[in-house]
């Protein structure tokens, strides 16, 4: 193929296929370069100016998020955010979406999503310690969806298990809107010695740019613009934009990078992974951040395919590659170091002072543009927004459930895929490798201890997009607070947030309104509990044939447990323990699983969330855990009190005998700000004195696996084993 000339690109508007608009192209040629960009240059701009790399549509909204606290060492702008946890240690975390690649090629899409987020963590100099993931699919009704689910789960496990990082948390949910546009979000948490922290920068005249890792092929070219492009039937064939992962090489790369930064910090000035838009994105960002320029010679890039042109090499998204900036005097040390790990490492360029980005290929200067123009000059869009019509129409709708049989409703709800146990999936993930996992998947938050200290890190992924769909602002608040309740229930103090903002096409004013309002909700909740948003990722254009997914912000939250004695799980521990629900229950059925079960859809507005009350309950639970008053603690979410009680009973095959002032229907209400706890009977007075109001003592834990419940309407005796089977087997049955 011969490359089109600069003039052809202009005349034939080839840049449009690559996602650049006319006005963006004019800005580049007339204002920035004052000449026509050639083929390679046009390619670089189109990918760097895509939503995925530039956030041009979402920047305005993202600025609303709080990103400061006394713990923040690094926030948005680096590969991952960093929070101080004392003793010269810090946690590093970030989440990333891999939605479109996973729709097209589920195993590799999911696997490379995991691989990419791990690189973001170790490129900060941190040792990755755990993985989480958030998955959303269409209903499990046809072979196509089941195959997709199987492959995505296998890809996540395949990568994480092989590289040897425990997957300790996540979520899986099913709604119609994700049928053709599944969401695959992965999160990685790492631990850093504060002295080891490396910025992703390329500074200092004549310092060297080193390429490390797998060879470059043509994979994933234009993956970044592809991710920002909405989905239609015809594009399903766009297979060439998918990358292939190799966790074995990544393990070597991870170990090598962590070791070189820890043992030889003076060798490495800056380090960055090659993620979306590979070589161009990583090197341009490193130079731009440092105020430097860069000269690259592509002939030195390790290649595994022949006759790749400059455009292909710069944009390739081949996996398992890193870029380092090093001092020339350590060149041999660095190259030898990586050789010992049997990794390719070569010098591909040099830092300059002229702020130009210059690329040579086969002796020819193929790119010569201001480096900042790739990263800083991207136009920012202020999109029109309008409140979705459905919200106006359904504002006063109030779902009133009818419960004929508490027992039947309860058992049916336990079988709902969104509520049923996800063990079928998470048992295929190694959750214990590294022998630090204190709480595995299956409780509220995953917990990893920090070896050699009393500390542990709690982590969770949360998103209930049904709520966000019904009311983006309140739904955004709920997503944060639900995550926080998970952390608190595990015995932790919430300290920070990462997110994946998954939405439809931002050019649709209703979608943009959803984005804006939910981010405002997220921000207000994060401010309330002092959990800054220190990293994240935006995935727009999640649509299929012009129908958008629910607005789906995924909140990844990390908490600190200062003493592992505080680690708490959701499982009831002993017969005779008293059971309490903390927080008042109201009729919150809009958006509930019960509404979904009884009507087949969700509808109506959400009640505003009282952030002060929410925080009070979290604080009280933390105090109670701190005073060792709590035997088990579980956050109430989908399916309400009934589901929380069952889940707490299942683990140790215990039962309960309770009497409540709630109606049978209210057993399934999804009122926020509530916890289910069990305590030793001897701690009753002390516990009640601490909590003061807003609690109800329900009864006690029993040895027999029987659920005895008296509501305001009726008394039922349920077989715990049958309930447990419904809950445990539902997903495996559906996946058959």
């Amino acid at each position, binding site marked *: 193929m011969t490359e089109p000339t600069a003039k052809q690109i202009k005349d034939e508007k080839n840049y449009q296929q690559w996602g650049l608009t006319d006005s963006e192209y004019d800005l580049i040629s007339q204002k920035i370069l004052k000449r026509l960009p050639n083929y390679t240059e046009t390619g670089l701009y189109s990918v760097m100016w895509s939503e995925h790399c530039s956030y041009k549509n979402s920047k305005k909204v993202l600025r609303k998020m709080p990103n400061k606290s006394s713990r923040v060492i690094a926030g948005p702008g680096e590969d991952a955010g960093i929070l101080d946890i004392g003793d010269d240690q810090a946690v590093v975390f970030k989440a990333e979406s891999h939605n479109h690649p996973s729709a097209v090629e589920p195993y590799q899409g999911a696997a490379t999503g995991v691989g990419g987020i791990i690189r973001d963590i170790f490129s900060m100099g941190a040792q990755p310690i755990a993985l989480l993931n958030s998955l959303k699919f269409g209903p499990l009704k046809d072979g196509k969806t089941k195959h997709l689910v199987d492959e995505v789960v296998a890809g996540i496990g395949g990568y994480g*298990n092989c590289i040897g990082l425990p997957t300790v948390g996540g979520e899986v949910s099913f709604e119609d809107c994700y049928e053709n546009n599944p969401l695959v979000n992965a999160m990685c948490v790492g631990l850093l010695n504060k002295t080891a922290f490396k910025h992703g920068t390329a500074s200092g005249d004549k310092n060297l740019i080193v390429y490390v890792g797998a060879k470059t092929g043509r994979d994933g070219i234009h993956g970044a613009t592809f991710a920002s492009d909405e989905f239609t039937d015809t594009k399903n064939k766009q297979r060439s934009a998918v990358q292939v992962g190799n966790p074995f090489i990544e393990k070597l790369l991870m170990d090598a990078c962590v070791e070189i930064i820890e043992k030889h910090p003076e060798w490495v000035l800056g380090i960055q992974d090659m993620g979306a838009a590979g070589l161009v994105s990583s090197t341009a960002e490193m130079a731009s951040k440092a105020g430097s320029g860069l000269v690259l010679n592509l002939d030195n890039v390790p290649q595994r395919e022949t006759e790749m042109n400059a455009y292909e090499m710069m944009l390739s998204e081949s996996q398992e590659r890193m870029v380092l900036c090093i001092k020339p005097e350590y060149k041999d040390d660095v190259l030898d170091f990586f050789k010992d790990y049997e990794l390719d490492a070569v010098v591909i360029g040099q830092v300059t002072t002229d702020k130009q980005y210059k690329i040579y290929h086969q002796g020819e200067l193929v790119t010569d543009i201001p480096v900042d123009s790739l990263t800083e000059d991207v136009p920012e869009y202020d999109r029109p927004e309008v409140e979705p019509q459905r919200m106006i129409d359904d504002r006063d709708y109030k779902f009133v459930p009818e419960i004929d049989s508490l027992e039947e409703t309860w058992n049916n709800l336990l079988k709902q895929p969104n509520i049923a146990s996800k063990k079928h999936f998470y048992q*295929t993930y190694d959750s214990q490798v590294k022998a630090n996992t204190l709480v595995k998947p299956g409780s509220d938050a995953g917990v990893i201890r920090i070896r050699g200290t009393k500390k542990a890190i709690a982590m969770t992924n949360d998103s209930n997009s049904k709520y966000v769909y019904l009311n983006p602002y309140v739904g955004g608040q709920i997503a944060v607070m639900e995550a926080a309740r998970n952390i608190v229930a595990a015995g932790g103090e919430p300290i920070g947030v990462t997110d994946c903002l998954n939405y439809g096409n931002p050019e649709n004013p209703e979608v943009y309104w959803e984005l804006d309002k939910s981010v405002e909700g997220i921000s207000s909740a994060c401010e309330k509990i002092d959990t800054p948003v220190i990293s994240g990722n935006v995935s727009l254009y999640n649509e299929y044939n012009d129908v958008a997914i629910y607005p789906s912000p995924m909140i990844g939250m990390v908490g600190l447990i200062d003493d592992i004695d505080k680690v708490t799980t959701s499982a009831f521990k002993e017969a005779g323990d008293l059971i309490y629900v903390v927080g008042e229950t109201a009729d919150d059925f809009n958006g509930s699983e019960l509404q979904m079960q009884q009507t087949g859809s969700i509808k109506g507005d959400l009640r505003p969330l009282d952030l002060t009350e929410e925080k009070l309950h979290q604080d009280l639970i933390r105090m109670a855990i701190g005073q060792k008053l709590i035997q088990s603690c579980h956050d109430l979410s989908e399916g309400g009190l009934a589901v929380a009680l069952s889940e707490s009973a299942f683990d140790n095959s215990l039962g309960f005998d309770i009497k409540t002032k709630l109606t049978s229907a209210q057993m399934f209400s999804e009122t926020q700000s509530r916890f289910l706890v069990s305590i030793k009977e001897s701690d009753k007075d002390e516990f009640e004195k601490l909590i003061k109001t807003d609690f109800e003592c329900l009864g006690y834990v029993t040895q027999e696996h029987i659920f005895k419940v008296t509501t305001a309407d009726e008394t039922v005796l349920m077989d715990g084993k049958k309930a447990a089977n419904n809950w445990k087997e539902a997903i495996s049955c559906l996946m058959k």
Partner: protein
Amino acid sequence: MKFAVVNFPGSNCDMDLYYAIRDGIKEEVELVDYRETSLDGFDGVLIPGGFSYGDYLRSGAIAVHAPVVKEIVRFANEGKIVLGICNGFQILTELGLLPGALIRNEKSRFICETVTLKVINDKTAFTNCYQENEEIRIPIAHGEGRYYCDDKTLAELKANDQIIFKYDRNVNGSVDQIAGVTNKQKNVLGMMPHPERAIEDILGSDDGLKLFQSIINYQVRVNN
């Protein structure tokens, strides 16, 4: 007693095993690179879990050709302690130091779960701190952990008391629910479950500790 934990490219439970020895039973332990050609000075060798060489070809198949393996074979032949866990077990069967093979789980999927094992033979270097038929809780985490051998081999294993651990239920489709076997001389043990992940109560179980203590016990007896 001084242990070597052999580290192949792609091993990922090497540190878990290292800590189990250093912190769990408080003995000497060192990580040894797969390129080493001598294990002089060590009393026992431990082969950790993970995905050596990415599990390319078959799990354990490529590691067998690494330089350090000659020394592992020497240890085995000299009657010294050799323990392979998970991928280590796979390597030992690939090497022929242990009979049988580990193949893809019956349901084909990876399984991570804490399972109950039955101690079948409590008279070995690896199990003398347990009781016969004692039930212990140990995590498994594998996709290719189904123990397979033909009938003749199985009969031999039984006749020689080489079956050391069995699962209490059919988790992965192993022949006779076998979770761990030794060689005839009983100085080489391979097992799919991870005792090194079960050495502290806070991790869910400390039932694995006695396995490592058994080795020390045994060595003390041999030395005296």
